[in-house]
């Protein structure tokens, strides 16, 4: 497509330069600077304070909690994503678009509402509140609530990546495997999985990034109890709002920003190396 622009009908060079310049300026100001600010603020006083902040007991607890929540939510949603993609991509059935819409639903719901629904169900005044209290089960303001909220908001990620990919790949190879005598599971393992591995990795990466970074939903169901029910994003908020702990807040933020950065790099690497396979996955 760039050829048109070396030919006779494109914009004049001056216009092109201005457009490129404006674009770059906009991207740097709006996107790059925020990323840079996190690291300059974190390391404003050098590496020492950053390590001290990260080694703080409560902060470590928040890191552990974040990892734990992600370690539960991501595999669950990966499993779901594969199952849903298998059903949607390899079969025809009525209500398919309804199912796909349902899968997308958590995407269009505000994270605060996502957290709120679990409070409505399991909170002290919720539907199951009294029953839970009577049985001494804590969901809201405890790990289960955090896991539920995290899982809710990350439901679509793997499924959304896999569905168009598996649809584009069709059923030929699986049918061939079956005709050669392979069982369903073996077919999936040896035929389908290798075909979708990059899309799957891509989806898992995005799912994980969101799971570890989720703020709004977790904020509602967590009790914000330092050392117990604070995930990393909540810890960042707590430290940020504490006038003396600004540097620590950015230290933790830098860690999460690193996660975001790694996700970005991996995403682009995957797109670059396996672009054709992932070409179906446009527009999240």
């Amino acid at each position, binding site marked *: 497509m760039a050829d048109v622009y070396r030919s006779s009908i494109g914009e004049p060079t001056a216009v092109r330069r201005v457009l490129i310049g404006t674009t770059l300026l906009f991207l740097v100001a709006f996107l790059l600077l925020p990323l840079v600010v996190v690291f300059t603020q974190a390391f404003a006083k050098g590496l020492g304070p950053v390590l001290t902040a990260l080694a703080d007991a409560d902060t470590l607890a928040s890191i552990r909690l974040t990892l734990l929540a992600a370690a539960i939510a991501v595999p669950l949603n990966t499993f779901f994503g594969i199952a849903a993609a298998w059903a949607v991509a390899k079969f025809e059935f009525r209500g398919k678009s309804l*199912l796909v819409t349902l899968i997308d639903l958590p995407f269009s*719901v505000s994270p605060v509402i996502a957290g709120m629904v679990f409070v409505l169900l399991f909170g002290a005044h919720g539907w199951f509140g009294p029953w839970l209290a009577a049985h001494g089960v804590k969901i809201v303001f405890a790990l289960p609530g955090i896991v539920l909220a995290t899982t809710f908001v990350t439901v679509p990620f793997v499924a959304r990546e896999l569905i168009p990919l598996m649809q584009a790949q069709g059923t030929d190879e699986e049918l061939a495997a079956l005709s050669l005598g392979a069982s369903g599971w073996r077919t999936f393992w040896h035929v389908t999985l290798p075909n979708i591995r990059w899309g799957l990795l891509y989806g898992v990466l995005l799912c994980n990034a969101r799971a570890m970074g989720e703020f709004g939903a977790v904020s509602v169901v967590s009790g914000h109890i330092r050392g117990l029910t604070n995930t990393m994003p909540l810890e*960042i908020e707590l430290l940020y709002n504490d006038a003396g702990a600004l540097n620590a807040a950015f230290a933790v933020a830098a860690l*999460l920003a690193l996660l975001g950065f790694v996700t970005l790099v991996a995403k682009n690497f995957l797109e670059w190396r396996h672009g054709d396979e992932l070409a179906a996955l446009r527009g999240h």
Partner: protein
Amino acid sequence: MNAVIADPAIGPQLSTRTVHKRARAPRSALPGFGLSLGFSVVYLSLLVLLPLAAVFLRAAGLGLDGLWRALATERVLHALALSFGGAATAAAINAVFGGLVAWTFVRYEFPAKRWFHALVDLPFALPTAVAGIALTTLYSEHGWLGAPLAKLGIKVAYTPLGIVVAMVFIGLPFVVRTLEPVLSEAEAQFEEAAATLGATRWQTIVHVIAPTVLPALMTGAALAFARAVGEYGSIIFIAGNVQKVSEIAPLLIMIRLDEFDYAGATALAASMLVLSFGVLLAINLLQAWSRRRG
């Protein structure tokens, strides 16, 4: 069944009928349909559908009276106006700049293009709380961008303007990523045809290229809008959170929950969901209409 088909005495009719019956039963020779669909439906119902249904049931349980009481306050109306209005403004800004960015990436070459292209996905990959504190620091009065703006008399952090800035940040990738494939599919011949017919470059862009990408632009802007309306983490730090001035709807829901005013929170949440749904439906219809014309 096999016996029936194999028996020549019975003849072709029965056997075809039997074959038809057999062919209709499985949807495909692939196994696992029941299992995968069943699991998916149960999972979604328990995790997504039921909880969301709880919101609407609860809201409905308030009755029209209760809903009115919960919603018809200045504070609520202002929060809704801020969230929806801010998101709409940000979506419009993203439509313009996102269009510019997408155009530049698809049509031009320049150094470090790969890196800038990857940068566009940052709001997608960066945790919202991190984005929130970063933007606040950047636009505060001592921030790298906030300081020069303050000299011009423009205050960003802790004002509605800051909210819009944060919403632009999180919505940009939606517009750019939706536009890029459409722009890159555009064929040179239409632009060449317009040129041979005497259209200037600008006329070609306005009359030939723009209408082709308009549906994609609307989709992208709609996605950015939907995301910005409900966004919490990226905005909560840079917003002033002063009620009736810079308080976004999600924050108000949070506050109501803290006060154990479940009724208020539910009412607000339900109205947000309904409003968002309405806007998205309207945009979808608009797109369908424009697609029918071209």
